[in-house]
C-alpha cells in the first residue's frame, strides 16, 4: 500500500484538509471521512450515477474520482446545493410531482438535472431524457422526473425577463 497523501480542497464552500490513501475514491471520502452521506454509492463502477457530485462546476462520478485528484478543487454535494438554495425550485418540483420514491438516486438525479438546466434554457423531453440517461432510477420509470425537470425549466424561463 502506498503512503498517504495530504490534500486540501473546498467542500460545499468549506476548506477541508485531510490525509488520505491514494486509493480512496471521492465518494468514500465524502461519505466516510466527512459524513456527507447524501452522496450515494450504487454501483461503484461509474454506471448508475447515484454518486454524482459537482467538481469545479462539472458533474462527475465520485466513485470514479480519487480523493487525491480533488486536491485544490471545489466539490459540491447535495447537502451544499440544498443549503445554498440553488436547486430549491427543482427540489420543490420533484416533491410536487412525486419524482422520487425510495430517494436513493435523487441526489445524483437532481445534480445531473441542474447541470442540464444551467446549460440549456429550453430542453425538450427527449433532451432531458438524454441528459439524465446516465442516472439510473429503479422506482419511478423516469416519466415523473422528466415532468419535474421540464416544469422547472419552464418556471425558470418565466422568471427570467
Amino acid at each position: 500500500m502506498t503512503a498517504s497523501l495530504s490534500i486540501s480542497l473546498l467542500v460545499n464552500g468549506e476548506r477541508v484538509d485531510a490525509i488520505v490513501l491514494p486509493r480512496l475514491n471521492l465518494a468514500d471520502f465524502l461519505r466516510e471521512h466527512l459524513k456527507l452521506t447524501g452522496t450515494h454509492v450504487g454501483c461503484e463502477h461509474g454506471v448508475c450515477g447515484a454518486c454524482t457530485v459537482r467538481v469545479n462546476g462539472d458533474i462527475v462520478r465520485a466513485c470514479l474520482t480519487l480523493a487525491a485528484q480533488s486536491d485544490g478543487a471545489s466539490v459540491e454535494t447535495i447537502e451544499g446545493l440544498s443549503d445554498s438554495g440553488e436547486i430549491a425550485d427543482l427540489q420543490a418540483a420533484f416533491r410536487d410531482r412525486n419524482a422520487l420514491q425510495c430517494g436513493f438516486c435523487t441526489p445524483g438525479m437532481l445534480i445531473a438535472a441542474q447541470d442540464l438546466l444551467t446549460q440549456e434554457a429550453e430542453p425538450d423531453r427527449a433532451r432531458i431524457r438524454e441528459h439524465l440517461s446516465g442516472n439510473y432510477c429503479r422506482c419511478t420509470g423516469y416519466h415523473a422526473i422528466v415532468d419535474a425537470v421540464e416544469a422547472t425549466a419552464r418556471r425558470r424561463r418565466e422568471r427570467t425577463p
Partner: protein
Amino acid sequence: MSSPPANKTALSELDRPNSYIGKVVPRPNLDRLLQGRGLYVSDIELPRMAHVVFVRSPHAHAKIVAVDTGAAKRLSGVIAIVTGEELASVITPWVGVLSHLKGLKSAPQRAIAIGRVCWQGEAVAAVVAVSRAIAEDAAEMVAVEYEALEAVTDMRAALDPKTPVIHASLGDNLAFERVLDAGTVDAAFGGSDEIVEVEFVFGRHTGVTLEPRAVVADWNSAEARLTIYQGTQAPHMVQNIAALHLGLEEAQVRVVCKDVGGSFGIKVHIYADEMATYALAKLLRRPIKFVADRVESFNTDIHARDHRCMGRIGVRRDGTIMAFEIDDLTGIGPYSMYPRTSAIEANQVVNLVGGPYVTRNYRARARVVFQNKNVMCQYRAVGHPIACSVTEGLVDLAAAKVGMDPAEIRRRNLIADDAYPCASPSGLRFELLSHHAALNKLVKMMNYDQLRAEQAALRTRNIHRGIGIASFIEVTNPSAAFYGVGGAKISSQDGVAVRLDAQGSVICQTSITEQGQGSESLTAQIVGSVLGVSMSRVRVILGDTDQTPYGGGTWASRGAGIGGEAALQAAKILRKNILDVAAAILQSSPAELDIADDAVVNSADGAPRIELRELARIVYFRPDTLPPGIQPELMATRHYVPREYPFAFTNGVQASWLELDTDTGFIKLLGHWVVEDCGTLINPQLVDEQIRGGVVQGLGAALFEKCIYDERGQLTNANMADYLVPMAGEMPDINVGHVVSPTTESELGAKGAGEAGTAGAAAAVANAVNDALKPFGAIVTEIPLTPQIILSALGRI
C-alpha cells in the same frame, strides 16, 4: 362503475370536506430525501462497529477442501475470520419449505457454506475488520482450496437421470410440481377450429435495487438483545427468523428499518449473508455492518422469472377461446429461498394463466427444479409477467390465426363486467373486476383506430410499427392464504395505533413499511381525513418492531389495502374518543359535534367549539376540570386482515406502441398506456407512479434484462455495464387511467396497485413486436427481445 365514488355510504367517514382521500398531496418528509438527509442502512455507523466482507465461491458447484485464513488474519485491522463451521455454533440452518405447497422439498442451507458450495457467489468465509477496505484486502488473502464438482445449469436437463443430483438426500432435482386439470380440456381442443402451440422463454433477471442489500446487526451482550438495522419490507418477519435461528426470544430482537433504497421484493427475503451478519454480531459481541457491493448483488440478490413455458390455446373461427394449456418449467438455484420459498412463482403461473377469460377449460403443469445458479424467488409481480405473457401471447396468436383484431378477440372473451362474483378455473375468487370497462377506456386513451391507420400507412413506406395489448389480473391484499397457512410466521394482518399528543397533533404507528411507495403518505391521508386533522399535524412512525403494532409490512401489493384499513379503523375509534371528551367539556353530546380543521366544531353549522390543542391540554394537564368519572382515552389501536376473500384481485390492461428497425433489430418504444382498477384511489398520483415504475421494470424484462450464465454456472454479466437496465433515454412516457371498483370487504375499498405495471408490460411489448413482424411472417416468444432475437426471427442472422 367507472366513476368514483362508487359506494358513497361506505366511504362516509372519509368523504368529508377536508378529506385527503382521492387527492393528490405531496408525500410527507420528502425534503429529507431531496436534500440527501435520509438515513439508509448504508449510512449507519455505530460505536465499535466493524465491517464484514464475504469470501465467495468462484465455482458453481465444488467441494471445499481447505480454508487457509492464516495470512489474512495477520493483516492489521482484521478482527476475525469466521468459517461456516465456526459460525454454526451461533446460528442454525434452515429449510425453505411451506406445508401448503404440497411436496415442496429443499435441503438445509447454512449462513456460510460448510463442506460444499452450490452456486457461484455462495459465502465460504466471513472477514471482519475495522473498515470495509481492510476487510476486502484480507478477503483476497484467504486461500480456499476447492475440488470442482459437475454443475447442473440447464433446467431442461435437471431431471434427466444422467444429471447429477445436487442434494443426494432429496433423491432428485425436482423441488416442486403442481398439476391442474379443470373443465374438459381435450374436448375443448377437439372442438376448436384452430390450435396454436408455442414455447415462451423468459430470461432470468433480478431487481437491481439502487441501494444494495445492507444490514447493521448490533448484539448488546449486557442487555442480551440484538438490534438489526436492515432495509427490509417485513421487519416482524426478520425479527421472527433471526430469533428462531439464533436461539433467542423474539422480544430479544429489535428490527429497525429507516430509509430503504429500493426493494421490489428483493428485500422481503432472508439471505444467508444477512443471517451470517446477525450471527457475527452475536459471536463477536459488537455491531457488524454488511453492505453488498454491486457484483455481490448480482450474484446473491434473488433472481426471478427463469421460465420455459409451453403454451397451447384452442379457438373457434368466431374468436371464442376454447381452452388454455401450459407446461411450465423453472430453475430456482440450489435451495428454495427462506422463508417464503421458491415455489410461489411457478404456483402463481398455474393460478393466473387464462385468468381474465371466460373459458373454464384449463390444464397446467409446473415443475420447479434445482440447479447450481443463484437462488430464485419472489420479485415484483411474482409469476404475473409469466402468466400474462403466455396468456396474452397465445390470445394474440389465436387472433392472428382466425384473422381477428386483438382488441376484438378480447372483447369476445374477457369475463363480463356484470358476471361477478365468480371464480377462475384454478379456483381464484373474483369479487368485482372491470376488464371491459378498462379495455374500452384504453382503446379510447390510445386512439386505437388512429394508430392502426397510422401503422398501415407507415408499412407502405417500409416503417414497421406494432401495437400490443395485454389484459391482466393481479393478486393483492393477500390473507393468511399466501404464507400463514403453510406455517410461515409472516403476518397477513397489520396494525395501526393512533394518538392525540399534548398539543393536539397526531402520532400514528403502523406496521406497514415504506420503501418509497407512499405508505407514510397514505396513512397520514387516511388518519387526517377520518380525524379532521391537517396532514401536516399527523406524524407517521413505521419500520421499528419496538415501536409499531405487529404486522406484515409492505409487499404483495398489501400496504394500502390492509394497513390503510387498519389506519381507518383506528382513527375512527380515536375520533369517537375525542368527541366523547369534547362533549363532556362542552356539555354537549357527541352526535352534535364533529372535527374539522384541527378543531371540534358543531356538526350542524360547522361553528368552532374547541381546538384540539386546547382539548389535549385539558385532558393531559387539567383532567381535574373534567366531569367526575371521565377517563379520557386519546389513543386507539386497530388491526385488520381480509377475512372474506383470500386475495383482492385487481385487473387492468396495457398497450404498447413501438417501432421495429428490421435492419438492426432495435426496438423503439413510442408509447405505453395502462388502465387499471385498484378500487379506491387514496392518492391518485402515488398510484400512477407505482404503475409507471412497475411498467418500466416490465419493460426492462421485455427488452434488456438478463442474468447471462455460461454452461459452467458462471454469471458472465454481474455488473451494471453488462447487465442492461432501462435508463431515461429509452423509456417512453406512460399514460395511466383508472376504473374504480372498490372492494366491499373493507370500508376503505382499496386494493393493491404496486405490481400491476410489471404484470403486463412485457406481454404488451412482445405482442406489439409480433404485430410489427406480421408482414414478415415471423413471431418471437422469448424475452428479453434483444436485437439478436429479432434478427434471428427475421432470418437476417
